[in-house]
């Protein structure tokens, strides 16, 4: 079935008819948000592409929800006919992140997957070009993961030009002058610059 004049509402109805477990909502005009179980996503994407006419894969993104020990994968599909975007969201376990490739549906999905694999360490089964993409000789935690500390890494690995050690903290200077002793539980609440 082709829905040529698919609107936000008909799109939601249609999806809910077929995918009962999907959480579908209209985020705003021209944006439909679909939350799905991981194993249903490939099915849903090919359904959206072939039956709902969402032919354009606009984006694949990934968010690290480290607090919940999960990665969120987001697929964005655009229908040029309906001028509508579906945002498909699903969660992957962070311990053993795996998903299957979409390059059979959209060849350019391969590029997105290569990047997400490199930056988050998610394995896309079936994608043969996973491996070095943007980084070179990278060892250790994939850098876009939240537990990778870029400031620490940069400090340890790159030479920083000396000469700025004499910088003073305004808060400390003033409390030293006035004799104020700031307790530790208060220090947590100071608006400070980015840790250097």
């Amino acid at each position, binding site marked *: 079935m082709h829905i040529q004049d698919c609107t936000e509402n008909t799109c939601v109805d249609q999806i809910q008819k077929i995918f009962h477990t999907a959480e579908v909502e209209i985020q705003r005009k021209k944006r439909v948000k679909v939350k799905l179980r991981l194993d249903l996503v490939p099915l849903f994407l090919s359904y959206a592409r072939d039956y709902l006419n969402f032919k354009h894969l606009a984006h694949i993104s990934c968010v690290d929800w480290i607090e919940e020990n999960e990665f969120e994968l987001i697929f964005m599909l655009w229908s040029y006919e309906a001028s509508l975007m579906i945002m498909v969201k699903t969660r992957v376990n962070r311990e053993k992140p795996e998903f299957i490739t979409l390059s059979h549906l959209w060849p350019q999905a391969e590029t997105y997957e290569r990047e997400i694999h490199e930056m988050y360490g998610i394995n896309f089964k079936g994608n043969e070009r996973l491996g070095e993409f943007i980084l070179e000789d990278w060892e250790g935690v994939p850098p876009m993961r939240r537990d990778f500390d870029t400031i620490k890494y940069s400090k340890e690995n790159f030479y920083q030009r000396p000469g700025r050690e004499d910088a*003073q903290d305004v808060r400390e200077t*003033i409390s030293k*002058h006035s004799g104020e002793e700031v307790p530790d539980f*208060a220090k947590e609440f*100071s608006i*400070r610059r980015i840790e250097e």
Partner: protein
Amino acid sequence: MAFDIKGVLAPFSALKQGTKPPHTVRYPKEKKETAARYRGLHFNDLEECIGCGTCATICQNAAIDMIHVDGFETNSGDSGLRPRVDNGRCCWCALCVDVCPTGSLNLTKDYVYVSEDPDSFLWMPGVDNPEGKENLSFQSAEGKPLLEYERIPMHELEGTERVKSFAEVLLGYNEEEARKEAARCVGCSICTDICPVHMHIPEYINAIANGDDEAAVKIIYDNNPLGETCGKVCTRRCETVCAIGHRGEPIAIRWLKGYATSTVNNADLIEKIVNPEILPPNGHSVGIIGAGPSGLTAAYYLSLRGFNVTIYESKSHAGGMIMYGIPKYRLPLDSIDKQVEYMEKMGVKIKYNTKVGKDITLEEMKQHHEAILIGIGFEVPYELGLVGENEEGSIQAVNFLRNINSDRHVEIGDKVVVIGGGNVAIDAARVSRRLGADVTILYRRRVEDMPADWEEIEGAEDEGVHIHPQAIPLEIILDENKKVKALKYANAEMIPDPEGGRPRPKIIEGDEHIIEVTSVIGAIGQSADYNFIPEDIKNQIEIKRGRIIVNEDQQTNVPWLFASGDIANRRADAISAIADGYRAVKGIEKFILKSENK
């Protein structure tokens, strides 16, 4: 495809460009003027800059360091530091310019910075390019400021509504307003230096902004156990130096403190939230005379440090001047009771109705305690020095306020004149208004010379108090029953002081008036009563202009005797008294523990 003769010839039309003059900018011979808001190198007006470091905080490149510059010392209102820019980091986004609270940091038209030495790109705007002032280009004044310069207004009762009762005038921030107001703060901490107590202001404000009121309360109680009182009546010198105040309205530090502490409405809750560390008893004992702000503060922190503390208070309630001197519409009494109750929970013992010198002598106290802190405050009013002053209908403001706060009836009639221009005078006037009288304040100098808070003065005017500046009372006229009937006063003109001091009032001869009154309230100042101190000790300590001279530990010339509060500092406000009490804690601790080690 056919041979496209036109297409082959068309490009040759470019040859006609050869006749046109080139548009090349012949740099460096010919310099193109940069645009009016070009973002070039920085310039910092060192005099305007207060070293708040907001530029360093917002810089996403961590390009700005705060550095000490000769000629600028750390003092109230200036950290003494100035920004240094690392041009190896800077990206000229000019966020630092738009965020600068004083507007001292701007960008100039200069942009060429070429060198073979990579270490030469650290430089101090304003120090290294004093000529930059002439070349200002991208300036914060031009756009909308990034910071919020307008204070969230405080709700208060209408003037006509206020005079009907002693209900609190300021209604306080609600949660949303407090968060919004707190979020204006840039966290620079300039304000902490001028605060006599050096409260951790940026931290508790940011805690409020983050929605963590309990943390804010804990931070406030770290060095001020009367935070709630200060949140209502502090003279808030902090707000006078607030970085935001340079181009906008300062953060409402006092009201925010008031908001945070008012979220905790009983002593048990305070104990639960503050949960201070209490050291085990160390066997030493300290006696404190007077349960005013300074005495309570000292007692509280000494208790936390393991001392056995007893306060001797002549009246039936603790609080001193904040209990008996500040009208209820500014500071409800249950608020003080709550704070005192919390302190008693923390181990502070208060002996009420015990006047030192009468119920117990100083020598007797000395036998029980290793150190004694005097915090008796100024309770004896200055006399007006007018004829008829001691007759019926003439009262002293301090006594008047004390009686009112003790729920005693005072007869003042319906026409009151208050003499004086300080906070006590305004308090007396506003209380009289609430008792239903028409009130006039007579003050020697101009309104702008009045020592009272401008907010108090405005509040009084809103409530219908008439302020008559430049008026000097001459005589109280009595009726046949020796009751006050009228007041004679003269108008004055201001004469500039030849020595550069503030102008003095001088009576204009003949410009005398008589005003009918039912009461005259004097409020021209107070002093202390030192009669309880035995002569031999009095001879050893130094008393100057009514105040006991103490060192930085609040210690008098008699090592075991300490003094704090109004009798020891010239500012004579609650926050200075608290600061004295806090300092005395350290002094007493040092004194007792040092003698123990000997």
